[in-house]
């Protein structure tokens, strides 16, 4: 088996397996959550919980001024990484072509130069987040193997993607294979790790916002 066989597998079967594990895994995780009992709240509400829930889904994305003073680096790096990862994933021309091949829809891409800058910023932000995790006593105390593993799994697609932009023809196949495999790793571990927060945070915010809104409190 040479590098082209591996690339062929990573482009085809490998990607398909990863997408299926990701999709079915996420669905199972969400169903596990939704199927749990939730008794109706019998206390007379002050305001609509539904509206309050939606409000918190959006407002909790805004930076907390209370925390900005305490954890500025963490907050700024967090924003750069999340926005950067999202932009690179959805607005890089080759990614859009892939989505078009898979789902038949496409949208305008950002110029490669901008994508490159955003990629560098995102990688920098990830290292800042790692430094914070290691140096901050609370984060170091809370961190488990999974936190560091997920950090690495989030870094690899960005790093290999960046290197791919600067790779000569000679090692292009190797780097593309590494990029595809790193993405597949991220997809496979996604449903079974804290990466799930990309979906569940919206439910968490909704539940919290709704429970508080019924009491007349804006959170």
């Amino acid at each position, binding site marked *: 088996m040479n590098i082209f066989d591996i690339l062929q597998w990573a482009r085809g079967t490998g990607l398909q397996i990863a997408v299926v594990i990701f999709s079915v895994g996420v669905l199972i995780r969400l169903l596990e959550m939704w199927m749990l009992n939730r008794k109706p709240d019998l206390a007379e509400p002050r305001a609509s919980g539904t509206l309050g829930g939606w409000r918190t889904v959006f407002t909790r994305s805004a930076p907390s001024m209370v925390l900005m003073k305490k954890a500025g680096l963490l907050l700024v790096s967090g924003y750069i990484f999340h926005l950067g990862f999202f932009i690179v994933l959805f607005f890089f021309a080759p990614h859009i072509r892939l989505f078009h091949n898979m789902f038949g829809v496409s949208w305008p891409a950002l110029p490669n130069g901008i994508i490159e800058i955003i990629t560098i910023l995102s990688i920098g932000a990830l290292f800042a987040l790692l430094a914070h995790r290691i140096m901050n006593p609370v984060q170091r105390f*809370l961190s488990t193997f999974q936190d560091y593993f997920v950090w690495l799994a989030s870094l690899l697609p960005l790093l290999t993607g960046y290197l791919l932009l600067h790779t000569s023809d000679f090692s292009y196949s190797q780097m593309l294979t590494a990029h595809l495999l790193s993405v597949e790793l991220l997809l496979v571990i996604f449903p079974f790790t804290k990466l799930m927060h990309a979906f569940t945070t919206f439910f968490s915010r909704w539940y919290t*916002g709704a429970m508080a809104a019924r009491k007349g409190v804006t959170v």
Partner: protein
Amino acid sequence: MSTSLQQGLAAMIDKIDAPIASFFNSCVHCGMCADACLFYTETGDPKYTPIHKLEPLRKVWYREFTLEGRLLKMFGLAKAPTDAELVEWETLIYDSCTLCGRCSMVCPVGNDIVYMVRKVREGMVASGHAPAGLKEATVRSIEIGSPMGVTADTLRAQIKHAAKDTGLDIPLDKAGVDYLLLMSSAEIMQFPEFMGAAAQIFHQAGVSWTLSSTAYEATNSGMQIGSSELAAVLVKRIVDAAEKLKVKTVISPECGHAYTALRWEGPNLVGRPFTFKVKHILEVLDELRAEGKLRTEGLETERMTFHDPCQLVRRGGVHDQPRNLLRMVAPDYVEMEDAGNMNWCCGGGGGVSANERAEPLRIKVFSRKKKQLDKIGVSAMVTACSNCRNMLEEGLEHNHMDIKVLSLTELIAEHLAK
């Protein structure tokens, strides 16, 4: 595995619902909740990070409610919390959490962390890992009717005193009135002026009200210790009295958790909506103010501030009413930093004040309130929770701070227009 541990884990399994599953799925270990918790900010010890206090519950969720957790459990790889772990977590759950809910306000993924602390206490109490002080208070509440052992006879004696002091009739067990006023033990025993103050205000407003000889105690140790079963027994006493007396509204007194227990948890604990309204005394006073039935005269000349009881404001939604009322008599009162929904706890909420073991830590973390007060230089602090009052007075005394702690209801009563 011991029977009590099994019962504890079963109680946790029973309490895990969709929000809790969502919260555990969402936590990214960012640690921001630590900066919102006064037990962390005042000690600098990472073990007080709010989300860490929920580790036993997280283990139960992972093992019982996730696909891979269940698979790992089959091979003995996903371990349940042990008795030794619960012993270790008892102090984190009961001594270093006042259920103040400040952490729930800042979590970037939106986790209501204190909602989970309340639920994990169900498992702790079922497994026998609750603090002795809180257990004793709960037993007294169930057997005698009050966590401080106040009986109906004590109440009758205090009614006589209040009637004599105010020259007003203090109705007991009067049916068909608008309001049934509950009291906290602290108000009956330590702050007896509260009863007279309420009587004077209701007299001026011309509203009908009563006390009850079977449901005088508003506080709920069952909720604080984390036993829904016992909390329901205590709520049921109030529901029975309110329905027997056919009152329109039950008034929760100046106590934070009593309001949460009756207003927000009450109907869910007894399993049906109430046939009467539940209002905090400040909500009632603010309604009377808006209707022009509460009239005051004279203004305070002292520099004052307002301490927000957590269960009343952040977790209860009674935010504007105390401010409307305080402005009637102290228009120039000053707000402390982080006032309102982000105010800091007195340190003794959520049953911590009934837990003697927690006292040194509670006194230590009062430094947060001290910092807030030092910045504004007031000579009086008004609040609306008798537990906060006790805790604030102790903290101020310990720090040699010369600041009076006042009840808002009593302050309003002192200024009633003649």
